[in-house]
């Protein structure tokens, strides 16, 4: 470590103003503070600080996403094997296939997103902010595996610049950056981003995996996609036409966006986030409550006009991106409600709206993304009401004492 420190100290002058590499100051600074905790000491106020910093916060979220990432790798390979009619499912080959499928996507989002972060940090003469560490992994996890790389790059660049940086960077954005990336893809390239053929990887990669041919009675439609187009109360089927059990949906061995199929892995992530106190339990709890409530309402008034109303409230939680949105999207502290009471209201409405869109809007088989984005927009309003209540309480106090 000493040698590394000495090396950094030696090359540092090159990156300072006047040095020949000063155009990369922010990059150097980013790596230096990543490797060594800065020695900056407090100059005003408290003399000691808690050891928690935004780097650790972000890394904890990334760690919480790891189970979903690994499961996504397995599931990507598994769906390919299954769709091709394979009889055996060799674990490591499937994992390797999934890894090779996701690697370029993660690489593209990180290169595009971090590249923009580095440039902006350099331009603003600020430190690099860590927010994109999380966003960069979230984006591949919530997109279908077949999303073309160039679209991913365009969408990432769009949302990092126009959703985050123009507002001032991490901590000032109104909308969840990862979700806007997905929404951008969804609305700009609907043909490539929805339908039955984007959720399963259908080609071999580096000699691994198989060609999946949709002509053979094989369908890569997600459960929610099938339900939206099927009749009342029909059981969703998996890629080769077998019925999907609740257990399958919980484990996540179903077609869907890369990292959001497994409710089990999302639960593991949720435990990590709640244990470390990084995510708000108020939000997660109330999103689930809202989803169950609206699922129950829809189920009680089930009608063939809206086939998704035949899903039980529990199935509503297990299918699609609901659980992932509850744990990783709705809890983004920057775009969620910030007040204690506000978090309950915000979370509950996310849950309600997600199921509302899912059931009563035939255009979109899944509503979690739009629900969170809608509530991102409304979160300041919810907080405004809570803040106003505090202000009114103070005013009343002044009046009674006067």
């Amino acid at each position, binding site marked *: 470590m000493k040698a590394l420190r000495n090396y950094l100290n030696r090359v540092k002058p090159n990156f300072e103003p006047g040095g020949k590499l000063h155009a990369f100051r922010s990059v150097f600074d980013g790596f230096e503070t990543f490797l060594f905790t800065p020695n900056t000491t407090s100059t005003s106020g408290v003399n000691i600080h808690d050891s*928690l910093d935004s780097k650790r916060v972000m890394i904890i979220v990334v760690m919480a996403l790891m189970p979903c990432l690994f499961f996504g790798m397995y599931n990507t390979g598994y769906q390919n094997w299954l769709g091709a009619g394979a009889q055996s499912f060799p674990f490591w080959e499937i994992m390797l296939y999934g890894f090779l499928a996701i690697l370029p996507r993660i690489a593209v989002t990180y290169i595009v997103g971090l590249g923009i972060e580095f440039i902006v940090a350099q331009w603003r003469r600020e430190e690099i902010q860590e927010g994109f560490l999380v966003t960069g992994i979230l984006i591949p996890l919530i997109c279908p595996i077949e999303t073309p790389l160039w679209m991913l790059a365009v969408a990432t660049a769009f949302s990092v610049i126009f959703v985050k940086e123009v507002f001032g960077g991490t901590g000032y954005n109104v909308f969840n950056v990862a979700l806007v990336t997905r929404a951008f893809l969804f609305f700009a390239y609907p043909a490539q981003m929805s339908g039955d053929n984007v959720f399963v990887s259908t080609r071999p990669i580096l000699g691994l995996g198989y060609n999946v041919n949709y002509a053979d009675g094989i369908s890569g439609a997600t459960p929610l996609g099938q339900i939206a187009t099927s009749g009342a109360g029909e059981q969703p089927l998996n890629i080769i036409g077998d019925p999907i059990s609740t257990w399958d949906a919980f484990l996540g061995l179903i077609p869907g966006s890369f990292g959001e199929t497994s409710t089990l892995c999302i639960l593991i992530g949720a435990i990590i986030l709640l244990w470390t106190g990084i995510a708000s339990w108020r939000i997660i709890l109330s999103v689930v409550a809202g989803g169950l409530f609206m699922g129950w309402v829809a189920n009680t008034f089930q009608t063939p006009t809206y086939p998704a109303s035949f899903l039980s409230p529990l199935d509503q939680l297990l299918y699609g991106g609901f659980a992932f949105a509850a744990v990783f999207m709705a809890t983004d502290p920057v775009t969620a409600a*910030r007040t204690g009471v506000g*978090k309950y209201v915000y979370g509950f409405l996310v849950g309600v709206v997600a199921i509302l869109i899912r059931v009563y809007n035939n255009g979109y088989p899944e509503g979690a993304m739009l629900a969170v984005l809608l509530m991102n927009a409304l979160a300041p309003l919810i907080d405004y009401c809570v803040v106003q209540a505090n202000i009114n309480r*103070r005013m009343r106090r002044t009046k009674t004492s006067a």
Partner: protein
Amino acid sequence: MRKTINLRKGLNLNLRGGVESEDVTMVTPSLVAVIPDDFPGFSPKLDVAEGDIVEAGTPLMHDKNCESVKLVSPVAGKVSAVVRGARRKIERVVIAPEGNGSLVHDAAKATSAETVKTLLMESGLWAMMRRRPYAIIPQAADKPRDIFVTAMDTAPLAWDPETLAAGKTAEIAAGVKALKLLTSGNIYIGIKNGSQMPDIAGAEMVEFNTLHPAGNAGIQAANIRPVNKGEVIWTLDIITLARIGALMLTGKADFETTVAVTGSEVKTPRLIKTVDGADMAQLTEGNIVNDGRNHRIISGNVLTGIPVGNDGFLRFPYRQITVIPEGDDADEFMGWASLSPSKMSTNRSFLGHFLNRAFSPDARLQGGRRGMIMSGEYDKVFPMDILPEYLIKAIMSRDIDQMEALGIYEVAPEDFALCEYVDPSKLELQRIVREGLDYLRSEI
């Protein structure tokens, strides 16, 4: 039956280097300084010159806004230096102690509100109280709604002021009697749960649990009866109250103080009896660990205290010295990923959180400054009916209406110390609040 208030929000930091023995060592300072910056709201105008001989209690400076408000010399001696900073701002007046003369006021005449007020101003004790709004010294025209006295100190490693005031019941009673003339409301004395302090006639005793910041006078006020717009309250601590009482009884203001020398870099944490403004060199002499690390010598506690260095002075209102490692010489590899049990944090991702041990943190920020990302972190350690994040944002945007509406009149910078400690974005909250209060005062 005493009223009891249990605050659930807050945080007690478990630090190494607390005082264990009640023995008190006498230390005579070699220099004593009076620093006007320690008395916010006081604009100093010099009353003495270098070389003047002064007694304990002789005015050194008066307030430009109100001539009767004085800062006085805590010791008898000679004015050895008047140190000025940029734009000739008076930074400190330094006295070399000599002899033991003491100015005696005619306290017997102080029987009405006006005369008590004048006596307090002239004696230098007036400036030792604080008023809200603005967390500054009381203004001459103030008619405080209530006066809040705190007889507890919950700050990290602080010594219990109640033990220091134990033998001073008569003085405290006299102090309450005098202050009673200045307010039409109550005098509340905040004491810790199970306190041995006897009831004082004329004051209402309120018990608090000892979860920091429950000992802050402002936190106690907010939970007993918060300040509303247009109202004024005064706050002070039990030692200052005893000083006021002593002044009323004897005519002499007492500037002796007992200081707790604490912190992980102190050899033997101990109590020292000295005077206000004593020089740090004498107080810490031979008592700092010689481990080759850089030290931060703080006058006060780790949360609100001022790093003054070894050539600094004991600052008002602190009765504590804390010495911790500075930490600028540390090279910590990937500290953000650390699983080391010696990292101190309220977050459960750190191993140290689960160990019942005392920590010796250094002064590093432990991260970079960021925008406000996490929400609800401040609320956990802020026991007032105020939304701290929103108040801070209102202050940063200099939105006066919003600041008022969100309760800026109720707060002092010290109330935000714990918020600043836990903040993962490492914002300088106490500085922000102080600037906000000053801005508001200059605009209204």
